[in-house]
């Protein structure tokens, strides 16, 4: 069945180091890929999205490039900040159905 696979569990790194959270998808028909971010006790909200192959999308210092050949949409940031600590979800869409990965907790240490 359709699925989205993310870097599992918890990623811990020190402030200032680069961030990379992996996302791959296996869906019958994919339209948009999304990254959502959820800070503690808040609602998930959109971080960035893309439907264009091989085009870099950027927002709030994060970037991701959709690669349809490898079914990937990895999230990157050059330098982590303490405020980036949150739960990150990759999601794929197929018409009305939104398929979320299980989420990756990012914990940035001072």
């Amino acid at each position, binding site marked *: 069945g359709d699925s989205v696979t993310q870097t599992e569990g918890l990623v811990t790194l020190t402030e200032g180091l680069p961030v990379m959270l992996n996302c791959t998808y296996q869906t019958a028909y994919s339209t948009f890929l999304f990254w959502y971010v959820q800070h503690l006790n*808040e*609602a998930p909200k*959109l971080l960035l*999205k893309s439907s264009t192959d091989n085009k870099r999308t950027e927002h709030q210092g994060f970037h991701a490039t959709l690669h349809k050949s490898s079914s990937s949409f990895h999230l990157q940031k050059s330098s982590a900040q303490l405020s980036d600590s949150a739960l990150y979800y990759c999601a794929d869409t197929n018409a009305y159905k939104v398929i979320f*990965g299980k989420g990756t907790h990012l914990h940035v240490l001072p």
Partner: protein
Amino acid sequence: DMKVTQMPRYLIKRMGENVLLECGQDMSHETMYWYRQDPGLGLQLIYISYDVDSNSEGDIPKGYRVSRKKREHFSLILDSAKTNQTSVYFCASTQGAVNTLYFGAGTRLSVL
């Protein structure tokens, strides 16, 4: 102001009681969703609503039903709640398909 509002924010119920979770949005979005969030499982889709009285089961509909009588309002009902329905429930809305989801703040439900 683009907003999805969920009520209540926190709820404690006993096993076997009925539960009503309510969600409203002020964006006239056609499509609304109910998800539950559990540690390690991410966001699991319970129901989708395409518009008034046009609802479809998601991936985990068992034990839940929904009601959408007005475009701006989408309810999730648990008839005879079970302890394994303890979770955080999120409502979301979007315009049409394949657009950004706007989430409510969530309802934390504990079934004892």
